[in-house]
């Protein structure tokens, strides 16, 4: 019995060792699950799904940056803005097709990330937080300053994406948007899964743990840190581009400092450094505000109380979650799984 189990484990490990096979399987399962979910959900829920998917893109990149390479960024909301405005200008003004526009928005943001990352390698901890904070505060102001290009407070409006006619006219727009965002999220999942498992993922963690020892191992500390910034900026750029496509709008109000802060909160709450944790974080970002609003509305309270209630509940949820799962939701899930396995094993043994 145990011999068969052992052999099965070896067999599984062998397939699991192939990064490409694992990555493709993961992407396929995720794509299938998203497809089924989008078919089952209502139009409104499909829109929420699409929002969650672009949040997953930026959170997955941010969790690699902060969790793996140990760099903090309060500027990822602004990086999303770069991607969002880039996509809006290319789609709205230049009439680019969807895929090249999103690819270009991703590339532009990666270049901005390269500049930011090069600066970041010279900064540590609170100084890096401060510099990225300045970026997050300063960038949205550009929309006002160059309002003829960026549309000022109103932002840029783009036309909704047209589903290909081959998919039939009955396809709801929200579902098509969810599919677009889903494709982006699956690409991010596949690439980051491979990256995290590779030598580069290990290099990032090594640099995070001890820069001196890492450089003596032959790792270029600044280059590894910049790479993490570029990768995570590209993810943020793609997320911003998808946001433009899903909401058909890129406006400065969507990229305030609070966005950057809630992104950081979401990766910590989800489980720092884990891609599954990023998915939890995305779910929290999308669902928690509407849940708290529903809860607040279900009590018939005065408007003064009920309008502040969502924020209070949000804070309460954060405090309770961090007390219950110090290493995030994914950390809690893992601990629970380990406990369950131990329980099953002890039952079988006894």
């Amino acid at each position: 019995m145990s011999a068969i189990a052992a052999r099965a484990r070896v067999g599984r490990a062998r397939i699991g060792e192939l990064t490409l096979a694992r990555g493709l399987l993961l992407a396929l399962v995720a794509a299938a699950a998203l497809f089924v979910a989008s078919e089952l959900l209502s139009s409104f829920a499909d829109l929420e799904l699409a929002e969650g998917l672009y949040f997953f893109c930026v959170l997955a990149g941010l969790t690699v940056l902060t969790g793996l390479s140990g760099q903090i960024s309060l500027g990822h909301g602004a990086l999303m803005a770069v991607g969002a405005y880039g996509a809006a200008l290319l789609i709205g003004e230049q009439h680019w097709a969807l895929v090249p526009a999103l690819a270009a928005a991703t590339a532009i943001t990666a270049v901005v990330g390269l500049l930011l990352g090069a600066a970041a390698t010279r900064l540590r901890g609170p100084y890096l937080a401060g510099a990225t904070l300045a970026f997050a505060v300063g960038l949205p102001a550009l929309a006002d300053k160059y309002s003829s290009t960026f549309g000022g407070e109103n932002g840029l409006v783009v036309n909704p994406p047209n589903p290909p006619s081959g998919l039939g006219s009955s396809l709801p727009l929200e579902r098509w948007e969810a599919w677009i965002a889903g494709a982006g999220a699956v690409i991010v999942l596949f690439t980051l899964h491979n990256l995290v498992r590779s030598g580069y993922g290990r290099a990032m963690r090594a640099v995070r743990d001890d820069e001196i020892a890492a450089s003596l191992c032959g790792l270029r500390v600044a280059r590894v840190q910049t790479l993490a910034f570029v990768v995570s900026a590209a993810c943020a750029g793609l997320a911003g581009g998808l946001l433009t496509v899903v909401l058909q709008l890129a406006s400065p109000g969507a990229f305030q400092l609070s966005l950057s802060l809630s992104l950081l909160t979401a990766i910590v709450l989800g489980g720092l450094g884990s891609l599954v944790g990023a998915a939890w974080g995305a779910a929290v970002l999308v669902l928690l505000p509407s849940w708290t609003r529903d809860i607040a509305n279900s009590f018939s309270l005065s408007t003064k109380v009920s309008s502040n209630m969502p924020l209070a509940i949000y804070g309460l949820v954060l405090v309770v979650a961090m007390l219950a799962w110090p290493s995030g939701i994914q950390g809690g899930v893992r601990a629970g799984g380990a406990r369950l396995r131990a329980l099953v094993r002890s039952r079988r043994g006894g």
Partner: protein
Amino acid sequence: MGEEEGGDPGALFEARALTVRFGGITALEDVSVSIAAGEVLGVIGPNGAGKTTLFNVMCGFTRPHSGTMAWEGRTLTHMRAHRLAGMGIARTLQGVGLFGELTVLENVVAGAERFRRTGLVSAVLGLPRADRDERQLRERALAALAELGCEDVAGRHPTTLPFPIQKRVALARALVAEPRLLLLDEPAGGLGADDLGDLTERIRALRGTTAVMLVEHRMDLVMSVCDRIVVLDFGSVIAEGPPAAIGRDPRVLEAYLGQEPGSGDSRGASAPGETQGASAPGGAAA
């Protein structure tokens, strides 16, 4: 010391007339050191003598104000830490300097970085050749761990291991890069008698294939493994020679014991216990 035109052609590594100042303090003054391939060189001296500063200059962490270095006869004005491994120089750190959140195996694989052949594109696409590359690094790392008798802790995190085992893992991480010059910064710090004996054997086994430069306070280790010893005091080389001669050198005894070199009587009295006496200031530092 000083002007050495072309330097020593047989030397694997050579430091020529290095001077380092921190503010008004001179940490190294006109220090020239060379090491031949396969040689075991001890660098000793009281606390603050400049031993670790010398290592830091050799690794590029500290820039010298003047002086040059040469690796295999090629002159380098300054070293870059991340280039050392590729050149064939590895260093262990005081303490252990292991990556705390990486497993022991991952720590050692990180040390084998110079043997990585595939780049970012293969990694991001998860191509099989990146996997093969990783497997090759892992095999090297496992072999290095087995060499030091640590393969059974490969899956553990270093912080959960006893200190002497952590030291061995750190040594494995340095040796997995197959260096031609190994810089050991206080490898015996915190080791008991058994582990010290093991380390002594380990360094002896390297002699002839890997040059070792050893900064160490434990005189018993230094005296038993080194081919040659360089003594630093207040940033200058005050003596150089084989262990037996260094143990008798009055300048060395003075540096460690603070005696007047002229007072022949006290020198004679301390001679039998010289290694013991010399290790005393080091013991206080460790």
